[in-house]
């Protein structure tokens, strides 16, 4: 069974149909991509999936259970986490603290436990901090845990967002343009990281990306949105040669660039 199944999801803002009846299926332990021109409704769909928006129509099944109507924190608890197109870290907190907030749903300590520093709370906090440091090391931020998030270089901030999302031990990770604004070397590192997320941690990935090199080399499946509708879906090679996609989005020059 598919891990994520969106059925005819529709989101309307006023008179604008931002997402119109989109079906999307993501199989467990795959890397799926969502592409499309600016304003195609990719981020809106992400927001519907993660509970920031409530879709007007359609259903979203995560591991068989419907997500529609759940709050975004409940969805995180079920095992879905995300990053943002424009980085949205908790800027004045340190990197470690950001990851600790990410672990929030997996921690159990109560206010009373914290006030009296019960043994359970203390153990849990120690383990959480340990895990946070491991996650930072995993994404490549070892030793930067005590730096304030806002003072980290741009590329590190993107990595920290991933680490924060990993804090909730997700089964499905939604990455909104993970390589945006990165230089080629950082982009390669990010691609390697995404592969490791799936291969080493067994996390299923759904990502939005504009960098075609990333999309085509990393994805198992690609879905294309245009004006809120899904116009194509399939393996990267299939999508790349689909005439509707070329017309709507890729353009002849990009296609030519990938043929050589």
């Amino acid at each position: 069974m598919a891990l994520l199944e969106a059925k005819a999801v529709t989101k309307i803002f006023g008179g604008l149909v931002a997402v119109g009846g989109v079906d999307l299926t993501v199989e467990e332990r795959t890397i799926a991509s969502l592409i499309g021109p600016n304003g195609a409704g990719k981020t809106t769909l992400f927001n519907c999936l993660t509970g920031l928006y409530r879709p007007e129509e359609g259903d979203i099944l995560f591991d068989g259970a419907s997500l529609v109507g759940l709050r975004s924190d409940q969805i995180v608890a079920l095992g879905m986490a995300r990053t943002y197109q424009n980085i949205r870290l908790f800027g004045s907190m340190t990197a470690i603290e950001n990851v600790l907030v990410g672990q929030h749903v997996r921690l159990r300590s109560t206010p009373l436990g914290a006030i009296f520093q019960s043994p359970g709370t203390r153990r849990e906090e120690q383990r959480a901090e340990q895990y946070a440091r491991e996650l930072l090391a995993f994404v490549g931020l070892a030793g930067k845990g005590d730096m304030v998030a806002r003072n980290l270089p741009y590329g590190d901030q993107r990595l920290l967002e991933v680490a924060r999302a990993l804090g909730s031990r997700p089964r499905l990770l939604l990455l909104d343009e993970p390589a945006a604004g990165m230089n080629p070397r950082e982009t390669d590192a990010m691609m390697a990281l995404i592969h490791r997320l799936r291969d080493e941690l067994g996390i299923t990935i759904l990502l939005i990306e504009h960098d075609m090199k990333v999309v085509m080399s990393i994805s198992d499946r690609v879905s294309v949105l245009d004006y809120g509708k899904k116009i194509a879906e399939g393996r990267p090679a299939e999508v790349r040669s689909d005439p509707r996609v070329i017309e709507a989005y890729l353009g002849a020059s990009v296609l030519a660039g990938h043929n050589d």
Partner: protein
Amino acid sequence: MRLRSLQRGSRIGAIAFAILTYLILIGLPTRLGAPAMSVLALLAALIFWLALRGGKSKQAFANRAPAPLFLTGTTAGFVAGLLTALLTAGFAQLLMSGVNVQPYLDKIVPMNMAALYGVMPGALVAGEAPAWGWLWQMAFVTLAGVGGALLVLIERALRQRTWSVGGATRWLAILLPFILLGFVIWLGNPAVTLGGNAKGTLRLLMAMAAIGSGLFALRAARPGREQRVLALLLFVGLACLPFTLDQFQNSVMGIVFIFVMMGLGLNIVVGFAGLLDLGYVAFFAIGAYVYAFLSAPFASPAFSSLLTSLGIPAAAPLTSFWLAIPITMVAAGVGGVLLGIPVLRLRGDYLAIVTLGFGEIIRLFMLNLSDLTNGPRGMLNIAPPYLFGYSFGNPRDIFILALLGAGVIAFTAHRLDGSRLGRAWIAMREDEDVAQATGVNLVRTKLLAFAIGALFAGLAGQLYAARQMNIFPDNFTLFVSVDTLSLVIVGGMGSIPGVVLGALALKGLPEVLRGVDEYRIVAFAALLVIMMIVRPEGILPSTRRRRELHSGNEPGAEVAPEPIRIGALTQEGGKA
């Protein structure tokens, strides 16, 4: 370049003139007496300093060359001086020629003008204003302009020096509270006559300074054993304080620490969770009134008749002070949740307005439910705390109880700050949507902030009721909320020691400044404005709040290329 200095100087001068005019029109010179002109010039110098230093960033500061700076300063001083001199000369002329301007500007009296000229008031009425008086006045303010420029240079020099934290400065910071405490105890000796009539005030001021410097000392101490030993010594010193101060001083300190208790609670709501609550007094009132019901049921007509009909005697307290503590705290906590539920979806300004309304509603309840609360006549004869037949009603014991209460609350707040809940609060303050999408349950987190904040205010309210013994709805006006919020902001939002410092500055200092009674409000307004310009993060900020307001400006901060635009940096509630 020169032209720009002149332009800028004239602008600053005009603004300074407006402020000086205001101070003259509210009659400050009369109050100050002979040194009026010097004090006004000193104030002017401070204004010029603030205006001249301009941008806060280190670079803008270092790049200012002395020559244009002095040109600007002198111009500003000259413009302000000339205008004030013309103004006062005009008023003096009107007075001397017998024109009665007082119905329009009631502080324009011979006294006021004479203070500015440094002559006897009689001289002005007799038509003998000193010929060079206006010139003298102008010179003073012009000098103030030069002084302002000089202050900028001094500040710059100080800032360029890197202060070593180790060494003598650090030890001085650590020892200062004990020196001050020794001073307080020494002043307590009746044989010491230092300070004359103001000796009591001086002691109070020193006692507050001792507590304040103790907080700085804790920061200066190295974490670990040094800090722990210092904390223990400071605690012993603090415990001595109530026993060395007199009744009045203890009563002032008592109210200061009741406000510390409140401030620590509000600090959780506003400082940690970023929820701007302007109706915080409501929980203080609930705490006070619930204790009043428990302790003096006979003061409430409806409640006492209800008790009598149930066969419970209403002539004596229902519970002791100590047993009442959990009851008042729970009542206030429930109040916090009840306020929290309707405002869950509100943010920023809207939240502030609704909470403000809530505070007023509670006060109006107290005022108009006469059957229950005895209305404006208040709840009378509330019992002080008793323990084994000993009454804790005197100011000294109230101060001790307030210290204990504040200590327990500070400890609790500190533990929460570093906990899972504390992180959720801060995440929520920074970006509510992302916090939720990261897994923070906003409903639970917000309600806990409101409830815990309210619990502390309820406890403070109970102690307040026990201290006053008679409470009235008028004790719980909006101004209590505003005062509490101000002390949190002045101290440094989100900072626990900051709250103590804020309470000392805002509730303690006015008592010390009794001498200048109504002008303390003006002084405070000015102080608040200056502080928000010079040190927006508060006197003793939490490290986190410092980062928020000074990111990138700090020495040693990583030079991070500011990314195109990092989300929406919401600082709701942090602006105030």
